[in-house]
């Protein structure tokens, strides 16, 4: 049969996806234990979610949550750091630790035959980290050195400046790493108190997924975490209680990077929390605007103008209102042209050039038809489940995702754009060569840029 090249082949019906069953239990110490069977390969993965992240840092100690999480694998229980990592190596373990604004997540995957050992090691790291002085001194020094190195990394500078300008002293106003001043001042006692007060079973969730039965996975977690008890209440801060800062005076800010080959851009403002009822509409809006390759921003700045290797937008959904941002790294001598084009696109989607029926179809389809890909590996499924736990999403969240996306129409998207993208509040950050950028900034009519020197 000859191929018909006159038209693309029809897709036919979308395949149905059977969502993995999550079995939920609660131990007597209040720890939530979720299990997911996944028998494709002889691996298991244990994920510990502690809903305490960088936003729980005390105002004068930015970086405390992150350095605490960094100390967890520096020795625990009977094992010092070297013995712990040697053991992890011998069970084929992969340990991943990440800290965001809202949570600390530790994931340990291992060969299935070592499931109990992996679960026990993870529990020891979460419950009984040693938190000893020599390790603390070293870890702090390494984090200070990291801060020094970030001075030369344009994306890191842009992220820090953008968060600072948008949020100021709000708990989202700093990146997890913190500041040099704070890291110099932080003590081991601070870390111990933070761990003791914030890491508690009643607030945490452990998700076990992999090549074992629900009962076996749950038994493994219970044996490891069952005796976890703490005195702290571990209540994460409630983001709805934080007053939001006013948009800054500075509409545009410059971090000078002499002779830089590109300018790193951030444009945006404070966005919305994960709990917004408009979550699905915003996902559709974003995928049309700057959420995938064929989005408006990327097609304009990259595929039409050739200003950049890639440009995107994102709503960072957190427990409190995270940032909405457009990000790109653009050729230095077209910096202001790129900012103008980006601003035009951000304006246009609010009404001058609203989302078209075709764009809506493409965006919704990308989200819904691409959804099965998120359920291929045990670790992917665990991470998806962790979102449910962290943001208190309903048990049927996975199975309602597709119909909810499909229910978003053009009007909903345009309304969401009007409501949640507000050019009057935009802050533009440019990390680039002042000599090349400054003379042209006047064209933007945003006033003189604030020059940021210490970030």
């Amino acid at each position, binding site marked *: 049969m000859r191929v018909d090249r006159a038209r693309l082949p029809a897709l036919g019906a979308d395949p149905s996806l059977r969502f993995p069953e999550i079995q939920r239990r609660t131990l007597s110490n209040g720890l939530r234990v979720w299990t997911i069977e996944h028998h494709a390969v002889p691996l298991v993965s244990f994920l510990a979610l502690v809903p305490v992240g960088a936003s729980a840092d005390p105002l004068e100690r930015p970086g405390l949550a992150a350095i605490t999480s960094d100390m967890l694998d520096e020795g625990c229980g009977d094992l010092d750091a070297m013995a712990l990592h040697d053991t992890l190596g011998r069970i084929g373990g992969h340990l991943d630790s990440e800290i965001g604004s809202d949570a600390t997540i530790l994931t340990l995957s291992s*060969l299935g035959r070592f499931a109990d050992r992996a679960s026990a090691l993870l529990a020891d790291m979460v419950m009984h980290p040693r938190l000893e002085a020599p390790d603390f001194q070293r870890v702090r020094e390494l984090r200070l*050195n990291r801060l020094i*190195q970030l001075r030369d990394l344009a994306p890191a500078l842009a992220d820090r400046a953008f968060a600072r300008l948008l949020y100021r002293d709000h708990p989202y106003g700093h990146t997890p790493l913190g500041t040099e001043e704070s890291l110099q001042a932080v003590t081991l006692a601070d870390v111990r108190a933070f761990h003791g007060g914030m890491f508690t079973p009643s607030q945490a969730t452990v998700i076990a997924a992999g090549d074992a039965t629900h009962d076996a996975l749950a038994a493994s977690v219970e044996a490891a975490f069952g005796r976890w008890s703490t005195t702290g209440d571990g209540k994460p801060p409630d983001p709805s209680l934080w007053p939001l800062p006013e948009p800054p005076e500075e509409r545009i800010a410059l971090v000078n990077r002499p002779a830089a080959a590109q300018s790193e851009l951030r444009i945006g403002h404070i966005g919305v929390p994960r709990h917004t009822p408009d979550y699905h509409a915003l996902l559709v809006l974003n995928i049309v605007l700057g959420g995938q390759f064929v989005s408006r921003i990327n097609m304009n700045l990259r595929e039409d103008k050739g200003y950049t290797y890639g440009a995107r937008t994102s709503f960072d959904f957190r427990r409190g209102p995270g940032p909405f941002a457009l990000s790109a790294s653009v050729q230095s001598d077209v910096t202001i042209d790129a900012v103008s084009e980006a601003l035009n696109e951000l304006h246009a989607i609010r009404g001058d050039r609203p989302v078209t029926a075709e764009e809506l179809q493409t965006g919704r389809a990308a989200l819904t038809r691409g959804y099965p890909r998120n359920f291929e590996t045990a670790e992917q499924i665990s991470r998806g489940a962790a979102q449910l736990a962290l943001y208190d999403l309903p048990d049927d969240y996975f199975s309602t995702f597709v119909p909810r996306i499909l229910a978003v129409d053009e009007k909903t998207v345009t309304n969401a754009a009007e409501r949640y993208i507000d050019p009057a509040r935009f802050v533009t950050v440019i990390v680039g060569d002042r000599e090349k950028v400054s003379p042209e900034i006047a064209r933007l009519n945003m006033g003189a840029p604030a020059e940021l020197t210490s970030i």
Partner: protein
Amino acid sequence: MNIPYTRQTLDNGLDVLVHEDHGCPIVAVNLWYHVGSKNETPGRTGFAHLFEHLMFEGSQHYDKGYFHPLQEAGALLNGSTNADRTNYWEVVPTNALELALWMESDRMGYLLPALTDAKFANQRDVVLNERRQNYENRPYGFAGMAIMAALYPADHPYQWMTIGAAEDIRAAHIDDVRAFFQTYYRPRNASLALAGDIETEQAVELAGRYFGELEGGHEPPPVQVPTVAPFLSERRLVLEDRVELPRLYLSWHSPAIFAADDAELDLVAEILASGKTSRLYRTLVYQERLATEVAASQSSRELAGYFQIIVTAAPGRTLDELERAIAVAIDVLANEGPTPQEMERCQAQAEANFIFRLQTVGGFGGKSDQLNAYNVFVGDPGFFERDLDRYRRVTPASVQRVAREWLQPESRVLLSVVPRGRSDLALAGSQPVTVS
């Protein structure tokens, strides 16, 4: 443990590999062209990668960009170029398999009629911006270019990085695209792997239907590889860059991918610098606090490999101190070999890494990519078990031997990357190099 597969070679020479995995209603389409920056010539570097970009700009029968219909079908897709090969992949829901095959086969067969000067000029700008973003504007971003240029003679196909020289990218011409396509983008020079929720018979039939009509083409000309004379004395180089902390790169020639000693050197890298228990991390970062980070790797490629150690000095420490400490660590490993505990740990990690790679059907490093790698480099898609065996067979004695034979002080290239104006922080006796 393996990746069960079926291989069928179409009349036009295209290899079709199929692997069934019914865990998730998705299919991975993964296409390798056996061409990379090693097929370029001096003065024309960066071209294979620029060409890869043009493959996403539309083909004769669908000339509106490659991404649109596939993203609308729920696909994740990408491509990449390295020295040895160029790969393209889509992960699609099962109902979009034919769409992906249609799109891949259209650009394999009918790219040129859709090629325009405007597309070419646009993607040349995009690639120059990719180079600025990932190399020029990134700390230590020029190190790789300086090292490749020092490891290999000027006419060696690995002498330049895949991204290429900026002036070569600017000088690239649209006529070169046509010649390159006709030489390398032919079914005979490609390997197609389909993995996921499909039936083998149907997958083979579909591949034949979409790709069978294309002209096979000739075998591309062989790559000329000049002999690299062993280095008789070490080379010390210094590069000034916009960085805060000095960093030292130690590089050696090493075996090609899957060649003798390749797996052993992989484990040497693991023993030296993988994880907190590794020898160099333990001494340099953990105990002595001379360094902020250390990494080691055996980068094995089709024609040859290179072994590399990268270490960044802690504030106030010198690269000379680091160089001495590393030389001692290699010496100890070469004289005494690894401990039984190290062997146990590294072999367990190697086995786990193989299993971790079996988790995904598509994308970079997924099962479909793996099948193509084995098929293209060793002619056997079923090489998985033998590949893993290479690691199981490593002994303490063989680790010791390869450390002694390959990592000799006189055959090193030592590159210091130091803050601008601070060449005094480089290893003693380093010659300045410039890269742009």
